[in-house]
């Protein structure tokens, strides 16, 4: 096993990986930008190295800086997390050239699968159906136009590298194409450092189902089960679950086998996720393979009992898998809500600022993977995903009820979050009955306001009482009021002083 590991990432996933390292007794090294001096991952690591200004292109995306830190800190392995350099073969190569273990697949299989267009070719060769689209990068707008005509509309413009729904645009008509191509290129460039894109047919009313696989360096590859990720907005997953209600045992087995076959075809090692699209008639098509740890891996950990990140470290260090496919038994049901700093009442616009109040749900069956704490500044520079709330239940029903309970307990003050959105989703009939596809959130869901008069009255009373208190305790000067408003303790003290 390794002795010292560098985590080339930030936020909740850096913390997740650091926790796994610590639980394996490994020393840890974090890297941070100016925006992250006091971020959780910096505080949790044994060592922390500053690598530049906030923009990722000048810090978290700088291969040379990270390799330099790895050498100075004398680590023997690097974990890339997800996003940033996680799917960048050049980075994997740089690690290898520096004599460092890269915790992920080989640069070769990463290249084969990481290039989405190439992956479609491989998949087709293995006999897994794919959707009409380009099997190579789009060179220019002209080619895009031409190909689009063949595929027909609606279609998707997708980044050739990376994943996570970044650098993806839906196009309904030829007029939208140029802007979509440009936007996708820019986003892909700024997120993954590579602006290559390709086109693919868009199947409406389909589900997004992915299979988690894990392989060691001795030829063993297992599936850790599927994840249902159809609840998306702007191609960003919002709520994931495992298992998927859409699969019966037969279809489930076929999907798992397809995923393993594809992985074997490219001598895949470490963790990977094969994403499939399942249409209304239960036909599945290969979408892409993510050659890295997935944001939503906790739901798989909760039902499989496997600590995926620890096993990533184990197999990367050369150990063989401790279990075969037969040994794995999926148990119960897990849900994950992605908590993002976005205002669901205002078009999901990102919300930044200092976390002035934080109360995380705890108790039985609840897991929080968070990158924030009270006092932390949510900055503009990075992904709005600030936390992941996962629950386990004996059944899907129990998991949903537990998620409702946990969401009600979650309090994040200072930035707007999409918690109210999740609360309405887990109370929505179509979700409860599993009647949803990738278009559900954008086409058939809207934030509701219940008009229960008792709740209206409670809201009115709350507002009036706060107004009344403000008025009574008003000390005149605005500065004073504002200082107080920004200070929970004084506020609490004041309430107490008012007494009963």
């Amino acid at each position, binding site marked *: 096993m390794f002795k010292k590991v560098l985590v080339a990432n930030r936020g909740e996933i850096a913390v997740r990986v650091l926790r796994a390292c610590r639980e394996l007794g490994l020393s840890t090294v974090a890297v941070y930008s100016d925006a992250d001096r006091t971020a959780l991952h910096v505080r949790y690591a044994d060592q922390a190295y500053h690598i530049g200004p906030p923009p990722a292109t000048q810090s978290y995306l700088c291969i040379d800086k990270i390799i330099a830190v790895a050498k100075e800190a004398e680590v023997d392995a690097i974990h890339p997390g997800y996003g940033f350099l996680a799917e960048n073969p050049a980075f994997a190569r740089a690690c290898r050239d520096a004599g460092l273990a890269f915790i992920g697949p080989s640069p070769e299989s990463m290249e084969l699968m990481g290039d989405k267009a190439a992956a479609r070719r491989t998949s087709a060769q293995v006999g897994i159906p794919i959707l009409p689209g380009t099997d190579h990068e789009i060179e220019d707008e002209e080619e895009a136009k031409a190909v689009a005509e063949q595929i027909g509309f609606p279609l998707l413009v997708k980044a050739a590298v990376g994943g996570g729904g970044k650098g993806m645009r839906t196009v309904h008509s030829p007029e939208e194409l140029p802007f979509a191509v440009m936007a996708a290129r*820019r986003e892909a460039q700024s997120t993954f450092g590579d602006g290559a894109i390709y086109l693919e047919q868009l199947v409406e009313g389909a589900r997004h189902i992915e299979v988690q696989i894990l392989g060691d360096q001795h030829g063993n590859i297992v599936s850790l089960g599927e994840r249902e990720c159809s609840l998306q907005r702007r191609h960003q997953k919002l709520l994931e679950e495992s298992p998927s209600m859409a699969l019966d045992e037969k279809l489930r087995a076929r999907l798992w086998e397809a995923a393993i076959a594809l992985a074997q075809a490219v001598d895949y090692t470490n963790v990977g996720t094969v994403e499939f699209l399942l249409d209304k008639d239960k036909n599945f098509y290969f979408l892409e393979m993510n050659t890295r740890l997935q944001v939503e891996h906790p739901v798989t950990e909760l039902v499989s009992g496997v600590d995926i990140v620890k096993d990533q470290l184990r197999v990367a260090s050369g150990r063989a898998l401790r279990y075969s496919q037969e040994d794995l038994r999926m148990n119960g049901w897990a849900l994950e809500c992605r908590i993002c700093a976005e205002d669901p009442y205002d078009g999901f616009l990102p919300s930044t600022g200092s976390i002035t109040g934080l*109360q995380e749900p705890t108790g039985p069956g609840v897991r929080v993977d968070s990158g924030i704490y009270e006092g932390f500044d949510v900055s503009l520079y990075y992904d709005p995903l600030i936390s992941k709330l996962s629950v386990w239940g004996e059944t899907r029903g129990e998991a949903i009820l537990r998620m409702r309970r946990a969401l009600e307990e979650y309090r994040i003050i200072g930035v707007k979050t999409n918690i109210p959105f999740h609360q309405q989703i887990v109370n929505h009939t179509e979700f409860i009955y599993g009647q949803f596809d990738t278009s559900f959130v954008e086409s058939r869901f809207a934030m509701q306001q219940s008009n229960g008069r008792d709740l209206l009255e409670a809201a*009115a009373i*709350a*507002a009036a009482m706060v107004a009344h208190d403000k008025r009574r305790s008003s000390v005149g000067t605005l500065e004073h009021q504002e200082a107080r*408003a920004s200070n929970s303790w004084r506020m609490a003290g004041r309430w107490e002083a008012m007494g009963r």
Partner: protein
Amino acid sequence: MTYVASIDGESFHIGFDDADEIIVDKKHHAASIESTGGPSLYSLIVDNSSYEVHVEEREGSYRVLLLGQLYDVHVEDEGTRRAAKARRAHKAEPDEVVVIRSPIPGLIFDVPAKQGQQVKQGDILVIVEAMKMENELRAPRDATVKATLVSPGD
């Protein structure tokens, strides 16, 4: 001391006489509200019904988050009016400084809307890039663009 609190149409007349009783539309209720740590997080108990509410003042009206539902409550009262006026004059509370809706903190990526242009509700006015995503600011209603004060790159 009486206030009128209104939420989309519905109005409530809420009066205070002593510390732990209020009168809502002439009906008496035992009510108590206490801060619970968060700067704007309160525990409200009305006739033994317990609610946790997040109350934020916003230009004189209150944004109340209750059981995952958002209510915009307008509270009429001189004190509030004064405070509201004052706040409009004075700038930006800490937690408003970075409200993303004002394009400043993001990178202006594009401004399709041009001066004098007629725009329909939903038309894209400005595209702000923030948190690695482009966010399209659209027209709330049909209108004419009087001026574009920002340009790409801002």
